[in-house]
């Protein structure tokens, strides 16, 4: 059981879209009372960064196999299907926290 969830938010460029996603994820986690630490990266950095985190959120489709759970949060940016994605994120985080 961990005290806080380590989350990696990855986007293509690590510049604009990952920031939008990060901000939305912060609000989601705060509302769900999930303590978390969020770092950002580019998609190409995921394989090297996956060992330091518990959960990976990508802003676009990512197909390479990984060791950690991955959720596509594209809907948070486009506004489509947001409720479903929020639920997925919160459920996965709670699982990691051992609740």
């Amino acid at each position, binding site marked *: 059981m961990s005290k806080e969830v380590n989350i990696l938010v990855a*986007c*293509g*460029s*690590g*510049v*604009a*879209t*990952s*920031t*939008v996603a990060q*901000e939305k994820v912060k609000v989601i986690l705060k509302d769900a009372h999930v303590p978390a630490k969020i770092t*950002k990266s*580019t*998609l*190409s*950095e995921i394989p090297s960064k996956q060992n330091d985190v518990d959960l990976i959120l*990508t*802003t*676009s*489709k*990512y*197909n390479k196999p990984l060791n950690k759970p991955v959720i596509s949060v*594209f809907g948070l*940016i*486009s*506004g*489509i299907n947001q409720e479903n994605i929020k639920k997925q994120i919160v459920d996965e985080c709670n699982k990691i926290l051992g609740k």
Partner: protein
Amino acid sequence: MVIIQKILDLGPVVMLPIMIFLLGLFFRMKIGAALKAGLLVGIGFQGLNLVVNLLMSSISPATEYYKAMGKGFTTVDIGFAAIGGASWGVPFAAIAVLIIVAINIILLRLKVTNVMNIDIWNFIHFLIPGALAYALFGNILLGLGVTVVFGVLTLYAAQKVAPRWQEYFGLEGTTCSTFSFITLTYPASLLINKIIDFIPGLNKVDISMDKIANKLGFFGDPAVVGLFVGIFLGILTKQPWAVCLTMAIGIAAVLNLLPRMVSVMMEGLSSVGNSVQEYMKRKMGNETKLNIGMDIALSLGDPAVITVTVLCIPIVILFAFIIPNMTYFPVGLLGAVCYVIPMCAMASDGNVLRTFISSVINLFFVVLLSNYFAPEATEMMKVTGVKVSGMITDGHFGFNIGNIIIGFLSKVLR
């Protein structure tokens, strides 16, 4: 009136937060949230200034060397983050956003378009040509007009590419509204593919370039690229070892830190963007079939795109040495290469060889034109409040058709 003039004179570092704050309030943000948004945008802008200065000073041993020689890499490629951030510093930025959003809503209501463009950061694709027109022709209304025209044109182009974008990248309910790439790179790549269709042999073939891409994998990390570029430029310009290393760390720092400054600006802009989205939804009522305009960065997960991007980085560096009269070394462009590729991949239907050919041809012209329009680019910076020393340029002057048109008009008319 004197007070307003005095505030205007303080420049974008002060004006930008105020304008974003007012913009936020207009789109019904709470005062605290609007204040925070404005502050973050201003802080990011300030940070951008700092890092651009670092780039100037890190690369100066090389540019001084070439200036003394009278030819070579005397221009600095500051990159899209700097140029884009700077474009938010023109006096008409906030008004342009308001007008473009208003027109978008009207066009949506009239069902002339089905695209809702909420990608606020990429308004830089309209603001940059607008700033360029303002700087070159001295007319602020012209600048505003240019910005608005491209802001509206992108809706048309985004609607055209929507079906293909959704089909190829699987990003339902969205389209790409990143102006430069949908209006120039995509049609150009379609044309290149048509030409390849006519070449016997080539038209049937695709090859897997994964193995080569894996060997070149380290080109994917900007800091590492910066390190090599710095040392390379240092050796090329005969600097002492100490200077080479300083240049290397400096450029690596810039390539790592510049996107982070944009990130800070984005924290502010994205909360305004959310309010714009909510506002547009309210004005639209319950609309069914909408395509949300998105940043091209969302397509960067595509395997063909990743492979070809890695291959193109060393090729862009090669261009610096084979294009005649090249005045800059493509430091900033290396960070933007990845954005040119997705439209090439989409036009080539994922065929890696065709994507590669199309990307190389597109990038060749990007490098050529941003070199040609370096003087115009440098003039543009003057109206944005970001100080640079000497000549600069950026990829936007090679891939943004707005800049290309205005640049040519300027060269002919002035």
